[in-house]
């Protein structure tokens, strides 16, 4: 019998529906992989094998009765621990939320359970999704299943903030996982681990029940082994939700049925500002390969300009911390989560002590930056200026999309780096998101697909950015790359 953990979302859904294997067999196989890898990879904060089995039994029972199994029927998934899950601890990888057990279920996770998916567990991440290497989690680093081909066993970053998600999917602990993307947190970890991930248009997936980081940027999306699996899972996750004031009131397209790798008549823009001095040679080569693949798929390649690209990161590092400082004001030791009440302390002292004990260093850094740029006297110079620059960045994309339908660029400037290599210098860590952040600031759908391996044997990703609401175009270009890149590498099992 085939190893069920080698199967992706579509293969599991179809195999369960046909009766090739049962959903319970699938859940048991993945539960075993989760348990076996936990010590080495630390991808999960909490494993919930009983939840995966319970959903699988329900799917098998439905099949026995001849009822429809749903878009994700029989597929067990990992849930980033940023989504509130009723009755299951939800921490955002922070100490301040340790032990928090929601009384409600996030919209996106509920939609996935309604579609027949089951939960393998809550995945580790950077604390409050602030990080690009999964080194800011209170519950320890996630270790990438990938290693360099130099024979060494240096621990590599799985990317961040969705590092538990990327590690779990690439190590075959889950066929797919949820991610969230504020400034690249789905795409960069997908690229680092040789999997696919899509951040849809801002508003496609409800933010209700997702621990908020920067509300004008946060978007949920799927991370899976291929483009088709992403399309299936995104269909299950997306949809209008009156509980989210920025939710898009639009029908969810049938993205899986609409998949086509034929790009005849499509124009793909190559942004010249992304070709930076001193660009990694392997990253540049994979970008050139991507251009050739899209041409081969029938697309016309055009040169485009996004002149404000270099200002995207600094604008992001004002806007995101500003929103975070406001969103994270809710953690006060009163209503939920940690309380640190020193002897004889008053209310204000309790707030300050609780937040000092409950937030990690990077979270404190960002709250302080955010507080500063929003404070009286500095608001216009920093925050208003950044929001004006954000308008210009969005305008750059609008202008480019008068000349092309899609944009192709690398996902990240490098392959995965080693744990500890960038964690002492916040700025060098921030720069890893240079190619991912512009699409976030403009709210555009963007996807990373694996393009190949670099000379160290590590995966590189290519990024496709589309017009608002054109997830189909993004997925189709992803499919065109996927079918030509023929990426089949996977981490050699050492855990």
């Amino acid at each position, binding site marked *: 019998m085939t190893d069920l953990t080698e199967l992706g979302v579509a293969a599991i859904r179809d195999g369960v529906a046909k009766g090739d294997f049962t959903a319970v067999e699938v859940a048991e196989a993945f539960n075993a992989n989760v348990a076996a890898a936990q010590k080495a990879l630390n991808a999960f904060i909490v494993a919930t094998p009983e939840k995966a089995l319970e959903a699988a039994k329900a799917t098998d029972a439905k099949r026995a009765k001849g009822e429809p199994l749903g878009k994700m029927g029989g597929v067990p998934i990992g849930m980033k621990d940023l989504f509130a899950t009723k009755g299951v601890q939800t921490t955002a990888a922070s100490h301040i939320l340790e032990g928090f057990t929601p009384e409600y279920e996030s919209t996106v996770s509920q939609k996935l359970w309604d579609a027949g998916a089951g939960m393998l567990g809550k995945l580790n991440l950077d604390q409050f999704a602030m990080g690009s290497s999964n080194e800011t989690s209170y519950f320890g680093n996630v270790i990438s299943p990938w290693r360099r081909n130099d024979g060494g066993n240096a621990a590599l970053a799985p990317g961040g903030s969705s590092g538990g998600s990327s590690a779990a999917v690439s190590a075959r602990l889950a066929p797919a996982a949820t991610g969230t993307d504020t400034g690249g947190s789905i795409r960069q970890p997908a690229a680092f681990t040789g999997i696919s991930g899509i951040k849809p248009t801002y508003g496609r997936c409800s933010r209700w029940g997702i621990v908020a980081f920067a509300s004008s940027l946060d978007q949920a999306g799927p991370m899976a082994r291929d483009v088709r699996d992403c399309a299936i899972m995104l269909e299950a996750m997306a949809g209008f939700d009156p509980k989210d004031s920025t939710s898009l009131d639009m029908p969810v397209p049938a993205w899986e049925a609409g998949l086509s790798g034929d790009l005849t008549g499509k124009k793909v823009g190559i942004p010249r500002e992304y070709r930076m001095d001193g660009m990694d040679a392997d990253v540049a080569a994979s970008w050139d390969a991507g251009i050739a693949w899209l041409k081969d798929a029938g697309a016309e390649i055009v040169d485009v300009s996004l002149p404000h690209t270099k200002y995207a990161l*600094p604008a992001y590092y004002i806007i995101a911390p500003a929103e975070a400082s406001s969103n994270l004001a809710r953690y*006060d030791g009163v209503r939920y989560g940690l*309380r640190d009440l020193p002897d004889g302390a008053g209310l204000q002292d309790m707030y300050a002590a609780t937040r*000092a004990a409950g937030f990690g260093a990077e979270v404190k850094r960002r709250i302080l930056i955010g507080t500063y740029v929003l404070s009286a006297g500095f608001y216009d110079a920093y925050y208003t200026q950044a929001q004006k620059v954000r308008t210009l960045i969005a305008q750059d994309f609008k202008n480019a999309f008068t000349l092309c339908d899609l944009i192709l660029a690398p996902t990240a400037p490098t392959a995965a780096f080693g744990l500890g290599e960038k964690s002492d210098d916040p700025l060098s860590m921030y720069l890893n998101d240079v190619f991912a952040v512009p699409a976030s600031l403009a709210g555009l759908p963007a996807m990373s697909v694996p393009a190949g391996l670099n000379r160290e044997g590590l995966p590189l990703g290519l990024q496709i950015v589309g017009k608002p609401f054109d997830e189909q175009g993004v997925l189709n270009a992803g499919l065109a790359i996927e079918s030509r890149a023929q990426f089949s590498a996977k981490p050699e099992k050492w855990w």
Partner: protein
Amino acid sequence: MSVDTATVAKIAALARIKLSEGEVAAMVPELNGILAWVEQLGEVDVTGVEPMTAVIENKLRLRDDVVNADPLTGGDNRDGVLANAPAAEHGFFGVPKVIE
């Protein structure tokens, strides 16, 4: 613009995060590094540019003015609201004495 220890201490107080003197001192160069880097935004000519308010144009909706229209976000759920409180007493959030 750059920050000194007094400014960092003031920001930390505004943000309600207790920092020791040593933590404040360590934070000063880190924040200054980030602030010096974001300073480059000042180069951008933003004459006549409106600050971004909504990344995807979307009408803000009002819900119907009905009590508990959505049971998930409505009221009548005191125990659920208090379930995760570090100190809940007599159906209220417990906090240290605020008024003498």
